[in-house]
């Protein structure tokens, strides 16, 4: 079976400068793939390129269709949920309105209601904060809201940009535990970007290491964990 997402020779950048210099990677249906790398390696740029948020070149195939020329809105509508860098919270709107926006493309009201109820099982705190302005949420709560919003799109693939960023270790453990459940219980395919390599490798089955816009190591999570370069620079042992 072909992978759910496959990028070939992907380039991307801002203005005149190229940040990604032709990278190849794939996400298997139902799997979790991690994209690791230091700050500034191009991880966020990769996710933005996949969703058509910046200039990009090369080939991107998603669910058997080419999407490298599609607009962001259409890529989302085809089934890519993106939890962006910085979480993308609609600060001025309520938690409930943020969730309604997640389900904006859907017309199945009953399905949306059922999905929201199920998401409250994962993130009970969102239910308590429903009428609150989203800008008043803590960082962890905003991350949960961002994940819930992306899942309400009913994606086939969930992109996560540093879900651990700026959060206390306990909250991070919580969120990664929930991501694991979402992967197994909902059979959600995930592409997760992380600086925290050990965390991401625990969740992932495959991983790629990105350095200044090039993939330098790739393989199963178990193999990457044993890789010298990764161990020394990212796992610290």
């Amino acid at each position, binding site marked *: 079976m072909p992978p759910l997402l496959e990028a070939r020779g992907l380039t991307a950048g801002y203005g005149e400068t190229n940040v990604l210099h032709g990278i190849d990677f794939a996400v298997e249906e139902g799997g979790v793939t991690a994209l690791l790398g230091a700050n500034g390696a191009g991880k966020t740029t990769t996710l933005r390129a996949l969703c058509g948020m910046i200039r990009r070149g090369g080939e991107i195939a998603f669910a058997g269709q080419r999407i490298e020329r599609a607009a962001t*809105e259409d890529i*989302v509508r085809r089934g890519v949920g993106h939890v962006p860098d910085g979480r993308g919270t*609609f600060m001025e*709107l309520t938690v409930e309105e943020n969730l309604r926006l997640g389900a*904006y493309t859907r017309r199945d009201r009953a399905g949306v209601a059922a999905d929201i109820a199920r998401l409250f099982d994962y993130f009970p705190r969102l239910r308590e904060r429903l009428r609150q302005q989203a800008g008043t949420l803590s960082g962890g709560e905003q991350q949960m809201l961002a994940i819930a*919003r992306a899942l309400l799109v009913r994606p086939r693939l969930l992109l996560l940009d540093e879900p651990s960023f700026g959060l206390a270790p306990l909250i991070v453990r919580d969120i990664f535990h929930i991501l694991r459940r979402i992967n197994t219980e909902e059979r959600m395919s995930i592409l997760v970007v992380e600086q925290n390599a050990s965390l991401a490798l625990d969740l992932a089955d495959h991983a790629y290491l990105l350095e200044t816009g090039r993939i330098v190591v790739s393989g199963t999570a178990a193999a990457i964990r044993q890789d010298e370069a990764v161990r020394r620079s990212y796992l610290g042992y």
Partner: protein
Amino acid sequence: MNGLLHQIASGIASGAIYASVALALVMIYQATHHVNFAQGEMATLSTFVALTLIHAGVPFWGAFVLTILLSFALGVVVERILMRPMMNAPVLSSVGVFIGLLLVINALDGWIFGFTIKSFPSPFHAAHPLLGGYVSPHEIGETGLTVVVLTLVWLFFRYTTLGLAMRAAAYNPVSARLCGVRVNRMLGLGWGLAAAIGAAAGIMVAPVVFLDPNMMSGILLYAFAGALLGGIDSPLGAVIGGFVVGVLENLFGAYVVGTELKLTVALMIIVAVLLARPAGLFGRAVQSRV
């Protein structure tokens, strides 16, 4: 005392007009971070269209509705043709485009419809004086209609999914796209809606101030003062600001500076707000997003 009540009542009536135009300005500002200086001229053009329809024999309310629809389309077209290419342009060049649009519409109005001042019919009449005669039937009807329009706009943004998507597109276009919202379409809708609101204001004020190509220029200034007073990023603030400016303008005109200097009241308010509280009464302090 009677004079005072009268001044306040007509202040509220003109305030309703300023509130509408202020709301239109704020809607565009929230979505694009640009002030549409041509908002007033677009409304004047709409009012000319309405008058033409009425002279052609269309009943008043038919002409009103038709004009609103045409103005909506005009707003969508202006956004599509002029604003879309300007999306990421620096503020100063966008100011240039807005001023250019203002001048072009103004000249076009004069060229097509003439520069002479024209009277405009009011749809509101009464056999007997209303409310003790402090206010004219037109002032009552105009204020009532404006309040209905503003309430409908509020309900739309507050309770409909489309209204929510338009707010989301204005606050955070990147996140809105990631929710599947077609942000460009929302911008077009916003421009259409703003133009429609402006058109209603133009038609409502024309029976009072009469119609000529410069009808809205002073009104735009008052509306801008109202929007700044309430907070350029707060729709509710802009509406309240518009009413406050209307009342202040009338009171100052009657008791302090005289009617010739009324327009300076608007300028004074603008300067005072910019000096004392740039975010306005209801606005948030300006935060730049990265």
